[in-house]
């Protein structure tokens, strides 16, 4: 990450105290999301990464501290104004009844619609574009129920893209997918970042996926940021041991030439 990106951080958290189920999970946590990067947040379970993502996207209120979105405190925006600047895919969403792909993606237009407004040409275009860039356009008339897990996740991402926000947050988007669809989805995220210019923040479980796809990595443990930066610069056996308590060696990924974490075992 270069200094310019840091200065223009579209999303920033300052001195957060976070709690989950009345238990404090982080104190004095500050994070900046650099502009134009694919940021991945990693860390062991219960390190506070999902809580942080929820706080960054105003789904949860911090006990103390503040979140800044494009230079203004996020809590001072109307929630609909936030939804025009920041898109979020939560860990779980329910597709209601037998809704079709098109209708689900169309719901992403809500923040741009006024009370009783009609369906406009720009809504149609945004939905079509979102379906094309996620590769679900040919499924438009199918019920979401009938899709595979991988396709369904793409449809949800299309819904978030239809919001047309420059900033996307995704909470463990690969969790329920098999390995093929995981890679498929991560490639899609990379393309959205590189080609379409989105700033992305993704919480991931798989370390090697994170190393391979992140352009900016944030490693957390016990509610603290242990290290952040490009994976090549920060991922070392010492860091992995500090974050996960896991002994490992780091080799060069022969395909992507990013750090590959190989656990040593006992």
């Amino acid at each position, binding site marked *: 990450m270069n200094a310019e990106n840091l200065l223009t951080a579209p999303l920033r958290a300052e001195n957060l105290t976070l709690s989950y189920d009345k238990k404090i999970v982080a104190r004095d946590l500050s994070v900046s999301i650099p502009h134009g990067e694919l940021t991945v947040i990693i860390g062991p379970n219960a390190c506070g990464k999902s809580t942080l993502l929820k706080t960054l996207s105003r789904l949860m209120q911090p006990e103390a501290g503040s979140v800044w979105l494009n230079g203004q405190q996020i809590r001072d925006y109307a929630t609909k104004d936030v939804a025009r600047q920041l898109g979020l895919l939560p860990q779980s969403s329910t597709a209601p009844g037998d809704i079709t792909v098109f209708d689900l993606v169309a719901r992403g237009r809500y923040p741009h619609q006024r009370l009783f407004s009609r369906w406009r040409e720009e809504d149609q275009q945004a939905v079509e574009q979102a379906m094309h*860039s996620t590769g679900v356009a040919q499924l438009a008339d199918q019920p979401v129920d009938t899709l595979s897990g991988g396709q369904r996740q793409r449809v949800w991402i299309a819904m978030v893209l239809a919001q047309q926000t420059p900033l996307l947050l995704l909470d463990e988007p690969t969790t329920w997918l098999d390995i093929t669809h995981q890679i498929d989805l991560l490639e899609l995220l990379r393309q959205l970042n590189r080609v379409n210019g989105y700033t992305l923040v993704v919480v991931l479980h798989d370390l090697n996926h994170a190393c391979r796809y992140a352009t900016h990595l944030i490693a957390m443990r016990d509610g603290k940021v242990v290290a952040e930066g490009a994976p090549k610069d920060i991922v070392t056996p010492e860091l992995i041991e500090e974050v996960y308590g896991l002994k490992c060696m780091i080799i060069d990924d022969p395909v992507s030439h990013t750090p590959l974490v190989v656990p040593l075992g006992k």
Partner: protein
Amino acid sequence: MSLMVSHQTLAKKPLRLARPLATALLLLFTCLALAIYALGSSTLKLSAMQVIDALRGEGPANLAVIVTQWRLPRVALALLLGAALGLSGAIFQSLLRNPLGSPDVIGFNTGAYSGVLVVIVLFNGSILGITFGALAGGLITAGLIYLLAWRNGVEAFRLIIVGIAVRALLFALNTWMIVSASLESAMTAGLWSAGSLNGISWAKSLPAVLVILLAVMLLAALARRMRLLEMGDDTACALGVAVERSRLLLFLAGVLLTAAATAVAGPISFIALVAPQIARRLCANQNVLLLTALTGALLLLAADVVAQRLFMPYQLPVGVLTVSLGGIYLIWLLIRESRKK
């Protein structure tokens, strides 16, 4: 990964509304046809043309009085109250994400009726007082159930169970109030303890009609948000819905609709439970509020027409008939579910 998707032409959004629109027109037509039948057929039989003439203010004056003053209030209110109950059911089933989350199952209309009874039995109240009593009863019951079900937030299933329990308590309270009231009050109140449209008039129903119109306008403004809330609180919030406020307003609209209907006709069961389900099956589409309203209207009018004529010259309360319909529906639901397994 293939991102090269052929640019096929996608159906534009308005086209997707063709089927719901056709279904809505069909339901509307059926409602009108049944209404004309209901207006024409009673002790004095009238032809459809005579009914239409009377409605348009033509034809003999005595027929006009029979149709517009005696019969029309009952038919029009059956349609309106049916629509209100259907919409109320749709709101709660959506909020609670459960087909049993209907205001008649979780006791909101029983609570509204308790309010009516308090006004009649204790205060010998006017129509305005009865409407107010029903609204207050419904809102207090809803608040009570909500608070009793609250444990770090409200879980739908717990709310339904608490609602069923509170409904049973209120049912006992209602019976006790009728039993301990003076004969005259008891007669008035007992008349619609099952829900009935007998003896309805324009004047008696005006306050409730106004409340229903208000609640429908509120619901129209909230309909889009209601659909988004069905996807989960996090997703709805991410899309820019103020979750708690929207939910509270929807709750309010739902209680107003069911309480206003109860103020006019007593606690009519099962229309709210069944109408949204039928509407959903008529049209595999999410945008079913209009269809739900029309289905509810048609159901209640049909039930009232049958209740009025089944045991001529005696009139059944329409609520007795809708309870039976609801029983059949529940049995069908049970059989279907058991076959699935």
